[in-house]
């Protein structure tokens, strides 16, 4: 929250005692102050990046990469390549607002919505988040399971691996440690770009698709709407909003760090767009080969992606893609569990920081691990419709997103909280256009699918 800092004629009040959380955060801030004082620009950048890259690469998750590759396999190179860039540009606008609100207010999204708009809206937001996070977490475990099955490893290992990762990264009681471990893992999202290069795409076709956004996809209108909605859901989601704002506050960002926070967000978007396009280009090899070993029209097509790529592009491409799916699922499990922990802790009003011990922030850590355990347990249920859940996870996130975005825009415009760092007119115009666009796309798919399901249209 914006406050006057002691200056001429203002008497500084005595500082309250430091909690262990403050002390841990203060040590991180000391390094930032030191790098800034010594003029070490690269060290400063290294210290301040994190939440933006993690939000963006965390959203390049299992279902998103399956969705991109399925889009490539269904339509080939064309409209969807530049469309991915457009969705990441939208994502930058939304995530920059999250980072800014977190850095200025030092509070998470759930806490601010609850306190500023009342408990009803706060719990609606948290409820939406917990529901979509649970569905998405199941999808992440499914992605890990698909990746591991390429190496003939079963679902039990996927479940144990995911939960063990969450527990491992939570140990230590430091935000910095958690962030750096997950960042280290997120680097391997680049495997999708490697898979794209190894599948030897025609560079002329890739360039033509980016420049002309053509050919425009034909075929089933409903499938097109599904892929548009899931591509949006692969880049802008409710958990990213909760996560980046809370992580920015937990990291200790301040208004003085906004420039680096923007670098962090844009760098994350560029990397994620590059790797997302990589997944689509790798998947497009299946389209170019007439869909050998792969039936894109089948609703559960994602399951056979690594295997189909092995048939069409070689064993190495299939292996790299399978490893990429394991990475994408694992990183997303960590970031999505974290956003669940932040939301629950903030709405209940208890300690919600990685800079606390497990005893001090028991609810935060329990929500983190609990969300992963529930999702892991569901993928072990025999006959559960896991792949349908995976393919619908992004669509559900898209449908529920407009409410979260509207509250974010209201917070970013709240001059009482944000002072001089409130949204400008241009940002507001773009943000409102994004909300309208996402609402129309989500509603179009929802209504069209529903009318088909009840046989009112064919």
């Amino acid at each position, binding site marked *: 929250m914006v406050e006057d800092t002691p200056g001429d004629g203002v008497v500084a009040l005595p500082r309250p005692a430091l909690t262990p959380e403050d002390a841990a955060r203060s040590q991180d801030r000391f390094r930032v102050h030191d790098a800034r004082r010594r003029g070490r620009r690269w060290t400063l950048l290294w210290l301040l990046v994190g939440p933006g890259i993690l939000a963006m690469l965390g959203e390049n998750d299992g279902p998103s990469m399956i969705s991109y590759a399925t889009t490539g396999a269904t339509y080939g190179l064309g409209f969807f390549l530049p469309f991915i860039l457009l969705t990441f540009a939208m994502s930058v606008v939304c995530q920059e607002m999250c980072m800014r609100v977190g850095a200025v207010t030092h509070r998470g999204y759930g806490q601010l919505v609850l306190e500023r708009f009342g408990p009803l809206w706060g719990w609606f937001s948290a409820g939406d988040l917990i529901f979509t996070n649970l569905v998405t977490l199941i999808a992440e475990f499914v992605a890990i399971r698909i990746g591991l099955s390429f190496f003939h490893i079963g679902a039990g290992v996927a479940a144990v691996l995911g939960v063990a990762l969450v527990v491992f990264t939570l140990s230590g009681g430091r935000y910095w440690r958690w962030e750096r471990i997950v960042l280290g893992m997120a680097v391997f999202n680049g495997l999708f770009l490697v898979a794209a290069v190894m599948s030897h795409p025609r560079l002329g076709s890739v360039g033509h698709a980016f420049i002309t956004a053509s050919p425009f996809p034909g075929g089933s209108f409903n499938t097109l709407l599904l892929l548009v909605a899931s591509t949006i859901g692969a880049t802008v989601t409710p958990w990213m909003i909760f996560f980046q704002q809370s992580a920015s506050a937990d990291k200790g960002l301040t208004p003085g760090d906004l420039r680096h926070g923007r670098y962090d967000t844009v760098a994350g978007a560029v990397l994620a767009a590059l790797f997302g396009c990589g997944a689509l280009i790798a998947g497009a090899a299946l389209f170019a080969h007439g869909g050998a070993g792969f039936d894109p029209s089948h609703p559960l097509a994602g399951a056979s992606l690594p295997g189909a790529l092995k048939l069409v592009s070689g064993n190495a491409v299939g292996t790299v893609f399978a490893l990429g799916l394991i990475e994408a699922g694992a990183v997303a499990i960590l970031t999505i569990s974290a956003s669940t922990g932040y939301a629950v802790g903030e709405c209940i009003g208890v300690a919600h920081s990685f800079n606390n011990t497990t005893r001090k922030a028991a609810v935060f850590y329990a929500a983190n691990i609990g969300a992963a355990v529930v999702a892991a347990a569901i993928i072990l249920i025999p006959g559960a419709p896991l792949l349908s859940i995976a393919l619908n996870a992004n669509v559900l996130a898209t449908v529920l997103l407009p409410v979260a975005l*509207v509250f974010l825009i209201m917070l970013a415009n709240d001059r009482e909280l944000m002072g001089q760092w409130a949204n400008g007119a241009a940002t507001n115009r773009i943000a409102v256009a994004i909300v309208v666009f996402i609402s129309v796309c989500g509603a179009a798919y929802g209504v069209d699918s529903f009318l088909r399901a009840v046989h009112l249209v064919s």
Partner: protein
Amino acid sequence: MTAAEEQELVEFLERDQLVTDTARPVPRMALSRRTSVALWALRVFVVVVSAMVIYTFISQIVH
């Protein structure tokens, strides 16, 4: 941690960054009637569309 060490560390945090400050609730915003109606309309809209998506999802599984 000694008082001197604590004093040194606290200098690197902004006052409103301390846990004691962030735990203090921000005042509630007074929403106008128009804003409340718009928020409820949006809420109903996403619930209806979500129900459609979930219905479609379940019907796909059943069939």
